[in-house]
């Protein structure tokens, strides 16, 4: 299962000397090899631009994590400067992790992309089990993920961020509405949620995009049956431009959305028993499969379980 560490997760400072020095050495060789190298270099540039630069833009937008020492993105001189900025910023904001050890190892040093779209799908129920239960698990995971996102800044500020939750009226009637007293179990304060009830999926998408554009939110979560490539791409561009992560909770059997940074599939597992009584359900378990991660391709990337957050089990 463990695969070699992908190129994207290598620190930029390691890759940059390679890409600068190589063209000089291969100047006299054949044209095809030179082209190949140039393509490789462009690829490295692209990868570098995607991850570290995203941290830079995030900081610039929010204006929070910006320590006076770190140079502004416009000032940073070339690749080395950018890598330096990324390193500094990484130190100020810890990576965004899912809480699943195996998946977190895959996510590497930077964690989940805080400016991308992530899809969360419930596992298709194998046992004769209500699909609503798997959906509830997916919603819980999405909320947990949104709540786990570390934000640079003071602790007070970290507690107050708002999360936009958009779901259509039908979904709320079918699977139930979010219940405040139950949200505390996920380690999420109920007052952080801004809930938008829509009628059509087009409205949900519009509300999500508005939420991303506002830059006032910690994360945007939308429940949709399916999301087409075009709106998914649109939302991912908005997430990138406004430095806000966007999570979709989609149907179990619909095709996966395009243009996402990662895709997760959440299933249910029988949980353990309570310490004091074998018949009482103890801390719950849900099965987490990281099916896709940008730069690692699709296919099963990691699998594991997320136990209940500390302090909630009996």
């Amino acid at each position, binding site marked *: 299962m463990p695969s070699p560490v992908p190129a994207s997760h290598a620190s930029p400072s390691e890759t940059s000397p390679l890409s600068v020095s190589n063209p000089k050495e291969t100047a006299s060789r054949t044209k095809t090899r030179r082209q190949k190298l140039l393509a490789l270099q462009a690829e490295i540039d692209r990868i570098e631009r995607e991850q570290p630069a995203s941290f830079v833009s995030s900081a*610039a937008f929010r*204006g929070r994590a910006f320590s006076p020492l770190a140079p502004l993105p416009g000032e940073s001189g070339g690749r080395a400067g950018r890598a330096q900025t990324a390193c500094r910023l990484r130190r100020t904001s810890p990576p965004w992790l899912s809480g699943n050890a195996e998946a977190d190892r895959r996510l590497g040093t930077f964690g989940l992309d805080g400016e991308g779209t992530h899809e969360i799908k419930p596992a298709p129920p194998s046992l*004769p*089990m*209500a699909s*609503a*239960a*798997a959906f*509830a*698990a997916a919603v*819980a*995971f999405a*909320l947990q993920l949104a709540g786990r996102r570390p934000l640079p*800044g003071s602790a007070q*500020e970290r*507690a*107050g961020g708002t999360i936009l939750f958009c779901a259509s009226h039908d979904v709320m009637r079918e*699977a*139930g*509405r*979010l*219940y*405040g*007293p*139950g*949200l*505390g*179990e*996920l380690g999420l*304060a*109920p*007052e952080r*949620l*801004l*809930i*938008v*009830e*829509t009628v059509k999926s087009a*409205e949900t998408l519009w*509300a999500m995009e*508005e*939420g991303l554009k506002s*830059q*006032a*939110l910690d994360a945007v979560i939308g429940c949709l049956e399916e999301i087409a490539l075009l709106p998914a791409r649109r939302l991912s561009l908005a997430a990138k431009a406004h430095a806000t992560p966007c999570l979709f909770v989609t149907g179990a059997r619909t095709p996966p959305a395009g243009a996402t940074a990662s895709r997760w599939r959440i299933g*249910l*597992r*029988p*949980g353990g*028993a*309570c310490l004091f009584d074998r*018949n*009482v*359900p103890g801390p*719950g*378990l*849900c099965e987490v499969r990281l099916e896709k991660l940008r730069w690692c391709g699709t296919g099963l990337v990691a699998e594991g379980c997320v*136990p*209940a957050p500390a302090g*909630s089990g009996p």
Partner: protein
Amino acid sequence: MKRFVHLWLPYWPIERMRRVRPRLIADDQPLVLVTSGGRGIEITATNARAAGEGLWAGQALADARAMLPGLRSLPAEPEADATALAALAQWCGRYGPQRNVYGKSGIWIDVTGVAHLFGGEAGLLDDIVRRTEGFGVTVRAGIADTFAAAHALARFGAFGKKQRFCIVKAESAQTALAHFPVDALRLDPQAVLLLKRLGLRRIGQLYDLPRASLQRRFNDANFGRDKGGKGGKEGRGRRKVRGAELAVNVLTRLDQLLGKVTEPLVPLAEPPVLNVRQSWTDPLISAEGIAAEVRTLAVRLSEQLEAQGLGCRNVRLSLYRADGTAAEVRAGTSMACRDADHLMRLLSEKFASIDAGFGIDAAEIDAVAVEPMGGRQQRLGVEQGGSTGETRVLTELVDRLVNRLGSARVQMLEPCESYIPERAERRLPARDRIAGRRAQGCPGSERSGTVRWPRSPRPPRPLLLLAPPEPIRVEEDGWGGSPVSFVWRRVDHHVSRFEGPERIAPEWWREIGRPPARQARGRDYYRVEAVGGARFWIFRELPENSESEKEDAACPGAPAAGRWFLHGLYGGVS
């Protein structure tokens, strides 16, 4: 001192009909609109030609036919007339915010302080008359200090080919109105008749009469003498009261005409606190052009708001089309705001769908509701961190969502002090909640309400709550025991583990005075884990009377202990 314009549209019903149906009978033929009245078919409206032939509204159609054998008639449409008149009054908002319809064919506009924008009162009236006649509607306009005087001018003023409106200055009102007939006083027809019998034909004749004698004359029993004698004592008493009313009426109307008494008038819409307007010589048609002009207006409004230290909570954009209709767009904000960009974003989402028709030649933005707002908003390229900046950005987001989706659909959760699970939280419109937070002065903190969220309740509560709870079929472990398996939405779930029961009793203080059949019952909640890992929150509703339950418990085989419901779903990890 106020100035009122009164517009009288003498041939409104037929001219409106012609606007709707251009191929109506030509104007050079006499045409009347009719409806069935108490005395057979009656005329309700005439066109100019028919009026010239001596026909009048209220005449029987048979009499009119006798005078004019070839008279054409059509059924009247009073509701459509009234609707169109209200729309025209709406359009008249371009001349003044306070305006309304009067009767079936009149419109009044309060134009105090407006006339100079049109180059004086003559210019104002010329503009009104020119535009209204452009719509194909004959109009008589009058302007005076009082509503009554403007009304009298419009209805009884001397109009001609060149004289299309009447202006009466404040100082000359009394003399100018003296030669008007007493009909212009808006009196009851009986009172007019009596005045004429007394030889009082002109308003000027009433000026010098002693008020007391005028009142006495109308009180007199000789009022309506020719019809008297039948009703006896009672009838005479009623007549006397009626006469007294009429006398008061005559004096009041006279005072209103001369401005000695103010007349209460109800405008079509509440006047705005602040208002900016702009009109153009050529109508705007392109959406970009309109948006650019509206932005200019929004900037002007925000400047005015800032100058007065105010912020608006509710704005109204009115776009006046060249064809005499108006479109309105409203937008509300959750906190006082004078940011032109924000207002523009809220408005543009709505007015993008407005049909410009033949073009828009005037626009205005009204601040309908304002609040005092201190300080100046910061407009920086990069948003300032910290709670105030965040709150403002968040409220702007909420405003945008609310303006498209409606206030009830953008919600925030608030705890409530109750043990009943569905009452333990409330969904407040986010706009109110944010306003509340602001009032508390501590944004984002938990102290926004007096009630706090329960800290990890034991046993844990579900993540998703079904409203209302869904009935399920449960197999119990013995009578009244714990659940073994249940069917929910046609899927069989076998319970592998459960926790419970947790009894939640109804809140008795809410049940006082309710019939027993409608009283809430106690519930036994179970937190169950089905085979496969799904976790649910189910409950059994206890029977009506807990005492009878005890008795039943003694004898197994009695009817089931209660109905089961599924109330919530746990999110896997709790």
